[in-house]
């Protein structure tokens, strides 16, 4: 058909003309929410600080004079010393605390990011499918979630560690595999209310397949609660990782994480306070900021405004 009548070129021209005509961009709900978020001072400042922490954690190590596993035999257990380049002091093995805090922050951020992505992906798809199909499928899928909830996750992680050895990747998977349960429940609840809306019925009446309805109509409308819950999951995961590392199930030496650093610093806080202060300040700042961002997002995305 193309070429013979020149229909395609005519149509393309017309379409281009329509495109350049004056089709002003609409204001999407997401843009609305971002505008509201940008008016929230606490959230904006928090986003700035989190971005700063991320940048410093990943770029900083290139500018620090000491490596995170490098031992300085001349200064062991020393307070901050600017001449030698130990800005945060050194630990009992003579390693530079600043380098270790940067590395630990990096590790904690990676764990948080990967585990959040894993939990959001699994949770959203699982919850949306369960909620949309309902009935027996829903009952079965949600009972499985209940069973998983009943498993103590420390036990779950210990079993994983025993079976596959200590491995940071395993830690990501372990934490992600626990965190998606709550996400799935939240998403299922939302899906139950969304699927009763008329636009879902309209899509079904015009012949859309269940999977297309879930992906095109339900998941985009879940973005509010999912984004809010995800930002609140990140601090939870960082704490969980810290806890596991504290128990010695997490990251392995000489690598470190914020949790490991704090657990090493806590017993000596009275004699070597700099070992606790550095990582603790970073962790607390990070958690506070993420909570403020989550709060700001909740206000910005609140559907009651519409």
């Amino acid at each position: 058909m193309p070429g013979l009548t020149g229909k395609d070129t005519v149509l393309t021209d017309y379409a281009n003309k329509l495109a350049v005509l004056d089709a002003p961009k609409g204001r999407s709900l997401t843009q609305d929410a971002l505008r509201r978020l940008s008016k929230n001072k606490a959230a904006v400042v928090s986003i700035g600080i989190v971005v700063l922490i991320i940048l410093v954690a990943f770029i900083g190590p290139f500018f620090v004079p000491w490596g995170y596993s490098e031992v300085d035999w001349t200064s062991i257990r020393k307070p901050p010393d600017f001449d030698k380049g130990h800005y945060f002091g050194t630990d009992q093995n003579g390693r530079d605390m600043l380098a270790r805090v940067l590395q630990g922050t990096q590790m904690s951020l990676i764990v948080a990011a990967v585990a959040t992505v894993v939990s959001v992906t699994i949770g959203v798809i699982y919850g949306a499918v369960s909620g949309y199909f309902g009935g027996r499928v829903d009952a079965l899928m949600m009972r499985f979630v209940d069973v998983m909830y009943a498993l103590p996750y420390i036990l779950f992680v210990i079993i994983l560690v025993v079976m596959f050895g200590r491995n940071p990747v395993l830690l990501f998977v372990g934490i992600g595999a626990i965190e998606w349960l709550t996400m799935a429940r939240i998403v299922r609840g939302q899906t139950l209310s969304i699927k009763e809306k008329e636009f879902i019925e309209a899509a079904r009446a015009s012949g859309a397949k269940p999977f297309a309805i879930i992906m095109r109509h339900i998941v985009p409308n879940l973005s509010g609660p999912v984004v809010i819950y995800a930002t609140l999951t990140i601090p939870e995961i960082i704490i969980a990782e810290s806890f596991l590392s504290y128990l010695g199930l997490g990251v392995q030496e000489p690598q470190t994480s914020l949790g490991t650093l704090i657990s090493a610093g806590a017993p000596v806080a009275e004699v070597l306070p700099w070992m606790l202060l550095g990582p603790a300040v970073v962790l607390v700042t990070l958690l506070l900021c993420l909570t403020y961002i989550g709060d700001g997002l909740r206000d910005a995305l609140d559907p009651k405004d519409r």
Partner: protein
Amino acid sequence: MSAGEREPILRVRDLSVEFTIGSGGLFGGKKILRAVKGVSFDLYQGETLGIVGESGCGKSTLSRAIIRLLPATAGEAVWLGRDIQKMNSNELLDLRKDIQMIFQDPLASLNPRMTAGDIIAEPLKIHMPNIGKAERAVRVAEMMQKVGLLPSMINKYPHEFSGGQCQRIGIARALITNPKLIICDEAVSALDVSIRAQVVNLLMDLQKELGISLLFISHDIAVVRHIAQRIMVLYFGEVVEIGEAEQVTMDPHHDYTKRLIASVPVPDPKVEMERREERRRLRRAAAKAA
């Protein structure tokens, strides 16, 4: 338009829809709610059949059973010679292309995360996946013009439109696959009076132009009288009266139809006063009969 000896495009015979509702509790028994009880009617090409009745009388359930969004428990609905209950998934897809729906709540029937253009184009993507992006854009633009929207509104989101405009988007979405039948489920009930007249007239113009059939569901017999050639009155899931619009509204046979017509207000206080008496008389008669 007489619907004489032609073959109907939709033939519904003794259609029933039942819901099972649990009475709650561990030992509670199950109840069966019969929403639609043995409804039969024919619908011809280019014709408008109005379905009226109070809320909860099974109008919407009936329409959903016709397009198999709900399973019918008995009877049959035959679309162009094929029983809808027995269609396979390909035939069902064809059916969904031929029968489109317009919904009651203009805003709720549009996905808030999609632009007007995407919403109107969606049935095209489902039913004609092999037409190009350019042609799709052109068809959407043409359809928007046809229903009285500016093509430059293509990138706007539903919340940026008024109720009447949203309903026009819904109409454009229903029309874009060139359907043979459109089911308007309380399509104008949520609009205010002046917008309602505009949308009803738009539907009538489009029908004249495209020769589609309409199944116009409403609780408002005044609107139905205006748009429909034939009217079917439903009461508790049963057809109490069906016939030419003139005859049903001017000379109703069933008591329920009489009461329904008497409930329509007339903008004249004197006439309204007399009609109030008439309504009271009808109510008393109904109470006596019951």
